[in-house]
């Protein structure tokens, strides 16, 4: 079936890996939003505390499901040479190694968070909490991975989705940093400064980076995949 699809154009896995990636980003964004709503103890009679908390846990697990689908489909897709190992060990692959590697880093962090959360009854609360903070690191890394590897990054809908998710996460980080202000001002200041710095970086980098010209070549796509792409692809108008 793969052979038939290859002659017809990009494989179904290629579409699946992009779509599951986008959905995973969306779900991870909601997981962070819900996590902050949870820790800030916001609730209404219609949305009691235990529901918010349950929702946070379930959305996070769903995000992991989509993330696994995203990884599996990218491996199964025959276009880009991505192996299963590339999902866990960053920067060792041959397809856009750095940007793909960021995805592996983010996935590793989320694996640690997920496993510790599933086993939290067996570990001390303090250790579980310390590892849970890694979620704040995993998200921007995932976003950069999406911008760097994503082939749809110039398309309006994905750009809008990414910016929308970024806005939600920024708002969540600010809301989180304000809880208990002004204790631990140093830590809060660092978090807000880091977040602001990251946003500034995106603003400066995106236009000349992924949104600029020849990003596929500059980001490390193997030359064989850039020149002489399938003629069938041209006919479907897909962008690489």
């Amino acid at each position: 079936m793969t052979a038939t699809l290859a002659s017809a154009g990009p494989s179904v896995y290629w579409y699946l890996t992009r779509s599951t990636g986008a959905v995973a980003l969306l779900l991870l964004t909601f997981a962070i939003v819900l996590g902050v709503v949870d820790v800030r103890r916001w609730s209404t009679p219609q949305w009691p505390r235990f529901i918010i908390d349950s929702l946070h846990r379930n959305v996070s697990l769903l995000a992991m499901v989509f993330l696994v689908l995203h990884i599996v489909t990218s491996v199964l897709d025959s276009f880009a040479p991505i192996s299963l190992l590339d999902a866990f060990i960053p920067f060792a692959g041959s397809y856009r190694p750095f940007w793909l590697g960021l995805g592996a880093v983010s996935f590793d962090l989320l694996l640690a968070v997920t496993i510790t959360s599933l086993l939290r009854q067996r570990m001390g609360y303090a250790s579980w909490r310390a590892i849970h903070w890694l979620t704040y690191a995993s998200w921007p890394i995932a976003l950069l991975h999406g911008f760097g590897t994503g082939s749809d990054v110039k398309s309006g809908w994905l750009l809008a989705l990414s910016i929308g998710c970024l806005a939600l996460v920024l708002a969540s980080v600010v809301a989180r940093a304000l809880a208990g202000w002004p204790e631990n001002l140093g830590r809060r200041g660092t978090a807000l400064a880091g977040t602001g710095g990251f946003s500034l970086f995106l603003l400066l980098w995106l236009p000349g980076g992924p949104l600029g010209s020849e990003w596929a070549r500059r980001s490390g796509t193997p030359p064989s995949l850039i020149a002489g792409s399938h003629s069938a692809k041209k006919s479907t108008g897909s962008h690489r």
Partner: protein
Amino acid sequence: MSHRVRVNPIMCEAHGMCAELLPERITLDEWGYPMIDSEPLSGTLLDHARRAAQACPTFALLVERERP
């Protein structure tokens, strides 16, 4: 063999889920911290108590068996 609900006040961070899931035994004070009725639990109430203990983000809520 009866069980009772108890809170570890040091771990408790006033998330408030316990009072939602076991209102028969737990109410919140004006600062959001649980006030426990330590009457014995049994049957379905015990199941609710266990669920409440699992829901507590900091494991502050404990369901304890009576010490003989």
